């Protein structure tokens, strides 16, 4: 059996997980920041901070999942084009 080598593609996959985390956290941060600024400078109630924080969390998860779906689509497209180049002999697409 041939052993699979650890190549640059695996780094790309690690980056994908890392990027997902960053997207979620940055959205939560921006949501919280908008809420904080509204509370501080627009003299609104603290409920707005909570609301925008929640909005940030939802937005983070939404954007993160959208990013993952996009990456999955790209991965499948690459696999398909790899299949065509190898004359359909590559079985990596089935996984």
């Amino acid at each position, binding site marked *: 059996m041939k052993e699979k080598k650890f190549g640059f593609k695996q780094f790309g996959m690690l980056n994908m997980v890392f990027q997902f985390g*960053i*997207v979620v956290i940055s*959205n939560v*941060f921006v949501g919280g920041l908008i809420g904080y600024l509204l509370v501080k400078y627009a003299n609104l109630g603290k409920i707005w901070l909570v609301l925008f924080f929640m*909005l940030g969390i939802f*937005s983070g998860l*939404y954007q993160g999942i959208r990013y993952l779906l996009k990456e999955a689509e790209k991965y499948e497209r690459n696999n398909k084009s790899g299949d065509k180049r190898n004359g359909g002999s590559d079985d990596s697409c089935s996984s």
Partner: protein
Amino acid sequence: MKIQLTKSDKVFLGIIVAGYIAIFTYIIVTGYQFPKLDESVGQRWIYQLPFGTPPLNRVNPMTVFMSWAIMVGLIAFASSIKVFTIIPGKKQSLIEMLLDYILDLTKDAVPKEEFVRPTFNIAATLFLFIFVSNIISGIPGIQAVPRNNGVIFTIFEDTWYTPTSDLNTNATFAVMVLIISHVFAIKAKGFGQWVKGFFEPNPIMFPMNVIGELAKPVSHSLRLFGNIMGGGLLVLIISYLVKYFLMPTFLWGFFGIFVGSIQALVFTILAIAYIGSVIE
């Protein structure tokens, strides 16, 4: 496995070993005490301008000097390649190899032909600047350290000051990419379609789409800043722990050259991806 060393290898290793022996002997004979870790680690030289309001009138002069120095260096390098030939020289090969890769990435990510060239120009400029900035954070040079209400300049004690370890530089680039991407989007799709894009897949998602767009420059800039600034601090702290014996060279190489070049590429790829995703 048998290690084969040439004569020059042996001489090189011999000099390093002799250096270590000399340092050990010096420490033991003189009873040398290492100074405590400086409290100014991670502190920056901040200059307060005589005008403006407090948070906005503070500048880090080293960021300004080094940014200009890097820009002048890049322009000098570019102008030194006067004629591009069919059989390339060393400099031309280096530039062609780097920029060709970025051009391929841009062609893959940007769906509309007319935006490939402008996006490539922005991405390549960003890449070259950030790449050089990060690489010099792996080379010993001049640093400005605030001490006793003043500032002192150290030479070869630490690496060159790198502008990308200042969040202001990275945030500027990230905000610039965000603005450029939306200007391109308005040009490509028209104003109406661009506004409509914020209400997709349905109008309820509008606030989330806005927060998602605003979060892009945050993650974009903080990632580069964290890697470069964190790398610099780690090098100082670990070097202090091992008393500057072996680690700085390895750590400078790792954080400055390896992580630095990867982060420059990542920043560029993300810039291209952000522009490409808004245009399509």
